[in-house]
């Protein structure tokens, strides 16, 4: 068994005013694993991360990082972790080198400042004030400081938000290199591609709960693939071969267009195409699409929106919705 570096059970977090940002989540992260918390704004990613970093005390449940409670046993945990917040945290009037020097002085086993800046490509920017850095450079400085003590566990809150495509790719390479060396990484992101590229396992958060979790393949496998096309003129859905025999689990009609859902994409597509060939009909606008993380993600968001809409039409839960938009700015 691999050692569990992060162990979260039934975690809850409430803000003053009663809003519950994290509503009982559980997951574990093994040593050397890269775990991503994926979710839309307000899903509770940052609120969760802050509990793991020991910045706040949970309202319920338990967190263990490297076998310790990160809030109560701060001194045992902090020298072994590195943290990158969602934004900022460095005085704008200090230069890059001065910032790094200060941070190194507060970090056990800190690498030399020059080396730490070199690793993120900021070696040439040492004498520049933090306020004059671009958004991407600030993120890289933040990453360099999170890494300066060679942490065993790294917490990254949206590490590539605000970076251009190249900067994002460089950060990914850096994070992959860290993982190769055995660093355990927990990152939050709202970029699906980032989770797909980097994560060994992920959890999709929605409204403070885990909506889906597992490897990318696991999460995707839980979602159906789609086939859609326009029904030929004069045909009704009943004219198609029996859908159940094709492995289709459900269908929707929108105008002339029919959408079939299946977990056996090849079988369903083959059955359909063979039928079309024999019947001599053309399936206009045919679209055969394997399940993807994006589908899974959108579906979770959609289900939730539908649920929220139901609640609003009931006349309850409207306050809840507006509250959660406020909240991400607080957290």
């Amino acid at each position, binding site marked *: 068994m691999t050692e569990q570096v992060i162990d979260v059970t039934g975690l809850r977090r409430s803000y003053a005013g009663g809003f519950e940002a994290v509503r009982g989540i559980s997951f574990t992260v093994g040593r050397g694993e890269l775990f991503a918390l994926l979710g839309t704004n307000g899903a509770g990613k940052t609120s969760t991360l802050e509990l793991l970093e020991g910045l706040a005390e949970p309202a319920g449940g338990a967190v263990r990082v490297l076998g310790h409670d990160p809030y109560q046993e*701060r001194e045992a945990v902090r020298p*072994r972790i590195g943290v990158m*917040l969602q934004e*900022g945290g460095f*005085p704008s009037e*200090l230069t890059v080198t001065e910032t790094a020097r200060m941070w*190194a002085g*507060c970090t*056990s086993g800190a690498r030399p400042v020059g080396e730490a800046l070199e690793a993120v490509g900021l070696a040439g920017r040492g004498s520049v004030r933090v306020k004059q850095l671009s958004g991407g450079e600030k993120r890289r400085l933040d990453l360099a400081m999170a890494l300066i003590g060679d942490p065993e566990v790294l917490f990254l809150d949206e590490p590539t938000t605000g970076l251009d495509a190249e900067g994002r790719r460089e950060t990914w390479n850096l994070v992959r290199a860290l993982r190769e060396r055995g660093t355990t990484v927990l990152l939050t992101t709202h970029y699906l591609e980032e989770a797909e590229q980097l994560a060994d396992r992920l959890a999709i958060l929605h409204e403070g709960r885990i909506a889906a979790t597992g490897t990318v393949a696991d999460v995707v496998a839980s979602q159906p693939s789609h086939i859609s096309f326009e029904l030929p003129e004069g045909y009704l859905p009943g004219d198609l071969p029996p859908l159940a025999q094709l492995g289709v689990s459900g269908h929707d009609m929108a105008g002339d267009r029919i959408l079939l859902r299946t977990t056996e994409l090849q079988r369903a597509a083959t059955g359909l195409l063979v039928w079309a060939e024999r019947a001599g009909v053309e399936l206009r606008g045919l679209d055969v699409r394997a399940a993807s993380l994006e589908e899974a993600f959108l579906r979770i968001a959609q289900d939730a929106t539908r649920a929220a809409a139901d609640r609003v039409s009931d006349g309850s839960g409207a306050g809840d919705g507006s509250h959660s938009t406020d909240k991400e700015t607080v957290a």
Partner: protein
Amino acid sequence: MSSTTTAAKGVAARSAARTTPAGRLRAMARAELTLLGRSKGVLFTAMFVPLMMPFSARQAATGMDLDGTGLSIGTVVLPASIGFSLLFAVYSALVSVYASRREELVLKRLRTGEVRDLEILAGAAIPSVAIGLAQCVLLTVGCMALLDVGAPEAPLYAVLGLLVAFALWPVLAAVTASFSRSVESAQVAALPLVFVSFFASGTLIPLEVLPDNVAAVCRLMPLTPSIELIRGGWTGDMAATDALRALVIAVAWIVGGVFAVRRWFRWEPRR
């Protein structure tokens, strides 16, 4: 570069070089001192305002009727000047420092690291406290040379007065910063205590020239114990019971202030 050797080096260095509170404070104080040097407004308030004050305090003292109080112009002006130094170089400056570090998320970022909460506040206070101390020395020497103050009769009281002041005012600065939403509002939030300390703490108006019941209320203000102890240290005619009362009041403020900081200090901006 081989990644395994770096990892090994990292582990070795980690066990070898744990940071110490002194080392962390040094690193933070150095950064704060750099920042202070770059913040012209704070620097002006901290450096020049307190050093200008003796002149205005002297004018006020010259017009006072000090007969029968046992005070001279020098023993009025010196404690008052030290009081101004505490209010501007330490208190007001630190309110701005704490508020701006919070608004820039520096405090929150530091809290993710190894630095303890108390060290974060102390590290930020070191340069301001050092400037305040240097001013106190300068003002004492200046007053002794120009205002004929002479050596303190009871130096222990004066030292105690300074000690409690340098413990209390950074704490009060942190409390004040807790109750403000921005750097600008923090500067405004600092004003009430500055005014109270001007007029009701024996600084501009020595308690000796006030009616007894007014003086009794003034004795409860946070700056008063230090002013009384410093003044008593120079005149030498402060009774031990009065000195003890002043110390008790000062310690009560420190305890109350520390409690307030632990209870209400905000480490990140309210948005």
